[in-house]
């Protein structure tokens, strides 16, 4: 740290001391203005970040979603990402997500099977109905 001392017995030294004091004051002023500038920049950055993220607006629109997202961020920060619990949850989520598609597929298959059974039964009825005529019209065994 620089110290500025004035010598009262010497005129040249006094002038130098005054000049040094003026330089010191100037430097203090500049540090103060720099600090003020830094503070303003930091506040501006925080304001810009808030405006960009719009956390309050997002919480207003989707409170539960934002709480879940915050919970997820904390979960990841806590080191729970690559664990068996996470794998279990992901597996459960995939199954639940695939359930509607599987349900639609199963319903389609069941409908096709029912249609096939109905068609088969109708064909069998037709065959049995016309089967007597065919057997009656055929060559008779002796």
């Amino acid at each position, binding site marked *: 740290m620089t110290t500025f001392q004035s010598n009262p017995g010497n005129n040249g030294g006094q002038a130098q001391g005054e000049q040094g004091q003026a330089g010191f004051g100037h430097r203090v002023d500049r540090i103060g203005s720099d600090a003020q500038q830094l503070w303003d920049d930091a506040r501006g950055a925080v304001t810009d970040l808030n405006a960009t993220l719009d956390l309050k607006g997002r*919480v207003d629109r989707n*409170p539960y979603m*934002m*709480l879940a997202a915050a919970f997820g*961020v*904390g979960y990841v*920060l806590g080191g729970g990402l690559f*664990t*068996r*619990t996470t794998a279990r949850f992901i597996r459960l989520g995939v199954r639940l997500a695939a359930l509607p598609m599987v349900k639609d597929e199963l319903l389609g298959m069941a409908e096709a099977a029912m249609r096939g059974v109905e068609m088969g039964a109708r064909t069998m009825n037709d065959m049995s109905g016309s089967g007597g005529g065919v057997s009656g019209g055929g060559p008779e065994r002796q």
Partner: protein
Amino acid sequence: MDVNPQHLQDKARQFQENMVPQLEDARRNLEDFNTRVVSFVRANPGTCLLGAVAVGFIVGRIASRR
């Protein structure tokens, strides 16, 4: 076993009459709770988000220890 359909029907109706008001009360209570939670979260977004992060952190820690 002798089953009286009229008796069963009366029982079912009675059960329905008992259950419907309770279900309605439960629904109303849940809606009130939901409204209170949402308004609290909207009034204190920072606190709630930080709390959720903290809870998630603790749960993540517990999950990573297993």
